[in-house]
């Protein structure tokens, strides 16, 4: 029997192994090409505007941009996603209206990030939204510039919303019902049960959802390119790290690791592939670490459920 179908089995083995090899190949290629670019100097100097690869500086501002943007984005997304997930898991029943809400959120998960990006631009270029970015001066129909850290963070929050909702809802649903029943038996109200029993018990799952959201924000380029602008350094008042300039920094353009990779690749204007691979390696290591934390947390919850 096995002999007759050896070709089919060989094909199945091949497709499994090819998938693994592609992944390992990409990661190894990044390490080989990017490792020699990485040094303390590369990590801790600003990018310099130069076509010469040796003079084009490091990735300090993109690195800080990624950290700043993921923090801002997840801070915007978490309360919103958390509230929605709690409602869907604990309050909403099973009826047509709730089904419609769930479909709306599912559809949101399928919208391409480039559409979110152009939507963010459409909303935040409205003159009423000028507080999030800057005003374009010298134009008749006064529009806001619509590109800043705040704009990108809010757009990112909308983009990751459905994914964070999904994983928090799952985490809440996986809390054993006996916890809830015990809390009700002690006379606790519904909200007290949720805030003091269910959310702490679902902690690991909620952190997993947050980390997934961070990974998505850190890895997205389309929203960065349109809503944060393509400038390599911080666009606000200099020096940008002074506390009195923080607001100005948030309202101006900047860069993240993804936009740095795009800019430095042969497709962008910087054209220094060595630097692009270095920044790409830093980005992938960041995302690998996030994934490692997720699988560690997953193992932790699995152990807890066994006991």
């Amino acid at each position, binding site marked *: *029997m096995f002999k007759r179908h050896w070709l089919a089995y060989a094909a*199945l*083995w091949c*497709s*499994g192994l*090819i*998938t*693994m090899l*592609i*992944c390992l190949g*990409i990661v190894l*290629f990044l390490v080989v*090409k990017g490792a020699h670019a990485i040094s303390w100097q590369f990590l801790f100097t600003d990018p310099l505007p130069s076509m010469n690869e040796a003079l084009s500086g490091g990735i300090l501002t993109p690195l800080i941009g990624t950290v700043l943007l993921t923090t801002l984005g997840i801070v915007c997304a978490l309360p*919103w*996603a958390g*509230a*929605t997930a709690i*409602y*869907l898991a604990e*309050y*909403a029943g099973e009826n047509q209206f709730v089904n419609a*809400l769930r*479909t*709306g*959120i*599912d*559809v*949101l*998960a*399928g*919208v*391409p*990030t*480039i*559409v979110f*990006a*152009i*939507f963010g*631009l*459409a*909303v935040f270029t409205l003159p009423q939204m000028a507080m999030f970015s800057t005003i374009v001066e010298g134009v008749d129909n006064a529009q806001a510039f619509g590109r800043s850290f705040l704009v990108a963070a809010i757009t990112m929050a*909308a983009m990751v*919303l*459905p994914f964070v909702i999904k994983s928090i809802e799952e985490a809440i649903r996986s809390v054993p019902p006996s916890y809830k029943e015990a809390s009700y038996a002690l006379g606790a109200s*519904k*909200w007290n049960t949720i805030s003091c029993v269910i959310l702490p018990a679902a902690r690991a799952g909620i952190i997993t959802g947050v980390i997934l959201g961070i990974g998505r924000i850190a*890895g*997205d*380029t*389309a929203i960065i*390119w349109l809503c944060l602008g393509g400038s390599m350094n911080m666009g606000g008042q200099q020096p940008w790290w002074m506390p009195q300039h923080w607001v100005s920094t948030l309202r101006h353009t900047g860069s993240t690791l*993804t936009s740095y*990779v795009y800019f430095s*690749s042969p*497709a962008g204007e910087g054209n220094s*592939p060595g630097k692009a691979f270095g920044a*790409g390696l830093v*980005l*992938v290591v960041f995302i690998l670490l996030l*994934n490692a934390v997720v699988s560690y947390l997953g193992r932790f919850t699995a152990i807890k459920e066994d006991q």
Partner: protein
Amino acid sequence: MKEHSDLTAALATATPTTANTVTSAWRLKQFKEKAIEYLLATFTVMSAILIFFIMYFVIRRAVPVFQANGIGFILRGGWDTQFMTSWQAPADQPSWIFGALPLVMGTIYTTVGALLIAVPLGLGCAIFLVELCPPWLRVPLTTTVRLLAAIPSVIYGLVGLIVVVPVIAHTLITNQMAMNMINIAALDGTSILASMIVLSIMIGPIFIALSSDALRAVPRSYKEAAFALGISQWRTILKVMLPVARKGIIAGAILATGRAIGEAIALSMVSGGVANLPDFQHGLVFFLEPVRTLASAIVNNSEGMIVSTCESALFACATLLLLSSVALSVMATWVSGMVRKGVRSHV
């Protein structure tokens, strides 16, 4: 006796007040509970109607171009020259004529091409993972699939541009071929083929994850029944597992399609960025021609945003993407909803 009446009096005066405080505290608590519920419901409704909010803002800006071109927007070509004309047009004579046929066809060609690679490979990988994979290989394989899903699209674009594109340029494109095509498009390796390869690696993981879930959901009893009848493992996979998991696999393919049509950055790097309409009559050179997709047009032409005509045209591209992704999501929910019903009735 006196003490007793005192006590009764005390009780008579005390009880109502205690009852009153209990009721008002209880009412306050009830009010708080209700308020929290309504607050959470408001957030939920806001998340659900965000999609309509997006549609409103994107479509509103696209309307002028759709009004000026009608259905011609997706039936006419010449995007690149029209875009330049609108870009250079004087402010009092804006040029509203746009034809996005090359972008639409570019999106369709790259998406279908990516599915042609990703579906067989991904299905093979999913079957391997569920049925054949030895236990020691399971964790490495699932980890790498998850990792492939987590790698940012710009990394795929970069690796595609440094590895895939030069390989195509050096091995497949001959000087003669490039000379023949010189009037149509420059063949430099950035092509439909490169886009297909890069895109298939990007949509592979989501398809593998969803179709292996569907295969795992096939009830164990089905497989056992097939083995009891003496049917080989391969025929069981082919005749029992795949047909039962069919709808889940289709839903996975639909979601992977949605991912493929919306990919902007990686494709803007490897697809060539020329709004060229490849022709099947060129034979196999078709696969080596550069294209531009709807999503990558928004990235590549984003400098045009400051001119209102160009901006509206880009919003029209976004509208096409948005509507097709919504349609695909609804279709996938519909198909997998049927799956859920089907499994419930089977078990």
